[in-house]
């Protein structure tokens, strides 16, 4: 693999391996850009429908930032292996995917990070909830936020909440994104300081 990383908020950790730009099998070839594929492997069992839907979300987020036009007729494969799950799995996968793209040296137009918000029955916002908090929550919202202007790249919601609550969660997530981007910066700085 060209890069393998595992960032972990709390006890959730995901290992990301990125392969590419590599040769692509005939039918998957795209004439004007790179074909991005994401594979999410759960800790136990075979990948099911949940993994497939998460793969699509991750793929669409990555396609928004990767400059695929620079590598037409190639394949970029991102493999994510869940090592442990203690809540906020999707945002951990998003963070792992972004760091994988960064480490492999693929051309990106901006970085992104994932933040999960849980709305508990009282209406309080909990960032990066644990599995326990996720089960008790009324709604769980995951945002993928880009680094250039803190815009939203992807949103997924489980449960129901009002529009104002969603706006509040979004504002909290955008603030939390700063910490995550600082973490990226520190990790990369450590890597480059060794050479």
């Amino acid at each position, binding site marked *: 693999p060209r890069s393998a990383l595992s960032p972990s908020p709390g006890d959730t950790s995901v290992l990301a391996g990125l392969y590419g*730009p590599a040769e692509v099998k005939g039918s998957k070839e795209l004439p004007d850009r790179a074909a991005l594929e994401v594979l999410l492997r759960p800790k136990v069992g075979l990948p099911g429908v949940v993994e497939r839907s998460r793969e699509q979300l991750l793929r669409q987020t990555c396609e928004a930032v990767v400059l695929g036009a*620079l590598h037409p*007729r190639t394949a970029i494969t991102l493999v994510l292996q869940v090592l442990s799950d203690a809540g906020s799995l999707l945002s951990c996968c998003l963070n792992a995917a972004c760091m994988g793209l960064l480490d*492999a*040296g693929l051309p990106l137009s901006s970085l992104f990070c994932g933040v999960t918000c849980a709305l508990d029955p009282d209406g309080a916002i909990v960032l990066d909830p644990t599995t326990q908090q996720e089960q008790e929550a009324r709604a769980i919202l995951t945002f993928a936020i880009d680094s250039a202007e803190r815009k939203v790249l992807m949103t997924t919601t489980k449960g129901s909440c009002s529009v104002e609550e969603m706006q509040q969660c979004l504002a909290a997530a955008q603030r939390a994104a700063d910490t995550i981007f600082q973490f990226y910066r520190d990790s990369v700085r450590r890597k*480059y300081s060794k050479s």
Partner: protein
Amino acid sequence: GRLLCGPGLRRSGTGLLVTKCGLLRHRQAGGAAPASGAYWVDSQQKRYVPVKGDHVIGIVTAKAGDVFKLDVGGSEQASLSYLAFEGATKRNRPNVQVGDLVYGQFLVANKDMEPEMVCIDSHGRSSGMGIIGQDGFLFKVSLGLIRKLLAPKCEIIQELSQLYPFELVLGMNGRIWVKAKTVQQTLIIVNILEACEYMTAEQRRQVLAKFSGN
């Protein structure tokens, strides 16, 4: 003055977009005008993307009529014509077999076309390029280490040459070919070069001192 955008930077609209993470470098052009020269991002990567003019080591994978197909570590195989060797004519073909190592440069390398290699420079001379001889050892390192080794007056190469005499071919695609007098010496040099990426200069000198003592 004119500003040159190197690897890792792209023009977008009126401004510049940074596309890779790494150390930003600047080289001043001769005229010393404040906004001239070249800027680029030094990023660490293992995957090679063919660039025109790069000298690389390729492995011959197939012979298709008049053209050899080479694996250069990119997303596509490069093509090399049998006439692109010094002194090659239709009657005097070069002796290239599948599995041979070839050192050449890219004549054509862009995102839209299949890369093409030649083992001849613009004057028709081979200048060190061509089929790499028998024996020796080929291994892969990261692209950043190759750039470090190719810098003028590289300390690593000077120190290693004091240890044992050896032949070295560096390909910009991350491939290095080494040949020393015995297999053991070759393997020692290979291991030192691979470890150089993560060692500081002091640790390297300690390792070399240990070997030159034996």
